């Protein structure tokens, strides 16, 4: 069953079409690789899935929810539900929820967590505090809880720390628990980003070039970790340039070139595909 389904997804920035009618789906429990030459639109697709961009055309479904679709734009003026969105009526709320654009944090709450291509940790905060960010959307304390610290809120704080520590241990960062994120070696920073994303308890984990900048040894460890994460029941979608990683752990691969999908299949099928070979080696042959 498809956990994530992308249908005719298109994103244009002015005259540039970054993603061009791409459709594919990610099945529950698999590791899917998204590859393609630089500028093929891979990261744009990730940003569309996580709600940082809205698509120009097309839709994305996650676990039955429509999480991305083109915004209403000026059509909102002729859309009755846009005018009625404030009404506290259940049927109106439901229809508006289907029509409105989800914010990135709402998509995270539905069960998608991501890492970034350029590491985006909270650099001046400790490893523990970074991972606690992932637990944020699973806890509720607000101003009242902060000021009066009722027992429930203290319990929640303990829960947050315990959860964060669990993922720190899983990623092998225990000894750096109170170290500032920016003082970590590069490879550990990549791991910390994954720990932070895992702490959000996603059903789908999106990794944007997790092996970039890692050495041989670290890459092997990372591949092991990704397999372990998948075995714990989390579906994985990843972008990666390191072919050893992609061919080694992905069960299926989608290849993009100039925003278009040019191939999809198992690593063996993709490697034999003439269009893929041309996209990657075309310049040398010409």
């Amino acid at each position, binding site marked *: 069953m498809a956990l994530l389904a992308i249908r005719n997804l298109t994103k244009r920035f002015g005259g540039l079409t970054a993603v061009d009618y791409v459709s594919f789906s990610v099945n529950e429990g698999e590791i899917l690789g998204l590859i393609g030459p630089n500028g093929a639109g891979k990261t744009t697709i990730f940003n569309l899935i996580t709600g940082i961009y809205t698509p120009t055309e097309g839709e994305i479904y996650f676990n039955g929810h429509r999480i991305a679709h083109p915004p209403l734009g000026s059509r909102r003026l002729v859309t009755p539900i846009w005018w009625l969105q404030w009404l506290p009526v259940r049927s109106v709320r439901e229809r508006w929820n289907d029509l409105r654009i989800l914010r990135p944090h709402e998509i995270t709450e539905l069960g998608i967590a991501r890492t970034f291509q350029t590491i985006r940790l909270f650099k001046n905060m400790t490893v523990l505090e970074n991972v606690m960010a992932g637990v944020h959307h699973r806890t509720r304390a607000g101003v009242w809880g902060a000021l009066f610290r009722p027992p429930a809120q203290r319990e929640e704080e303990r829960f947050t720390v315990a959860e964060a520590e669990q993922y720190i241990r899983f990623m092998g960062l225990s000894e750096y628990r109170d170290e500032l994120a920016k003082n970590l070696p590069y490879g550990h920073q990549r791991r910390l980003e994954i720990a*932070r994303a895992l702490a959000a308890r996603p059903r789908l984990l999106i990794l944007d070039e997790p092996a970039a900048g890692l050495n041989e040894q670290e890459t092997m460890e990372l591949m092991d970790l990704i397999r372990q994460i998948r075995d714990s029941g989390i579906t994985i979608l990843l972008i990666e340039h390191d072919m050893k990683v992609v061919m080694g752990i992905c069960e299926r691969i989608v290849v993009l070139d100039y925003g278009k999908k040019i191939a999809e299949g198992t690593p063996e099928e993709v490697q034999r595909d003439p269009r893929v070979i041309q996209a990657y080696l075309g310049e040398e042959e010409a």
Partner: protein
Amino acid sequence: MTTWRPRLQKIPPLWWQAGLLVLAILLPLPLNDYYRAVLWRTGLYAILGLSLNIIVGYAGLFQLGHAAFYALGAYTSALLNLHFDIPLILTWPASILVAALFGYLISRPILHLRGDYLCIVTIAFGEVVRLALVNNIFGITGGANGLSGIDRPVLFGLVLRSPIHHYYLVLFFLVLTLFAVRRLENSRLGRAWMYVREDETAAEAMGVNTTRVKLLAFVLGSGWAGMAGALYVARVPVVSPDLARFIESVIMFCIVVLGGTGSIPGVFVGTLGMITLPEIFRFLKTWRDAWMGVAMVAMMIARPEGLWPSRRIRMEIREEE
């Protein structure tokens, strides 16, 4: 230098906190009324600084119209007292609510703006409030002259009149504020503010509702500035649009930045530098402002992170060099 610091750090925090409180209570006793009033002003601006620090320091949002909320709180307290004869103390919750409500209304549509754009809108809002007050909006604000004839606050039958009464009143609220901001800082909400300040996109991707979190910073900071406005009315029974002058906002902003953005001791250092010292050196007249300018420029070159910065902010600022 290196030997006494670890020794000082061994003293339990409760001890030096209690020590500082006793000092603050005893401080005005040997002083004359003028210096007691200076202390009152210091305490009032420390409260304002701490409230602005929630917005500027914790959430990292530029707010250069904070005096507007201060004025709104003062006018709310004054108007309720003048028109409805409500005792001043009972108007204080209304001051907080009105300032917080305006904080909500003004920040809701502009929170997606970042950095300097947000700053410009807050300056404009401050001016809108001031001009509305000057132009006697709804015929109730008394125009440029403001409002006068406001009652004195009465606390358990004691009419608060002399500077020392007001000093202790402000001190009480200052301690309350300190308690609150320290708890906010070390909470789920406080962490969320820091995530937003450090990297908004990453915070959003981790499931932090950034709009809600920033809105809360604005509402809490504005509401508490309203409380400070009410405390002003409690001592000075005259309010005028001067409370919302742009320079007031700038002073509050400088209090936060001078001492070190996001740092609680920094706010006190900032208040000392922006309020207490200029008051003590009043005899220097306009030379005071000139020196102030020189000192600010020198500080921005030598110590951009502030005089007593929080550990984190120092790193954030020094990093960019």
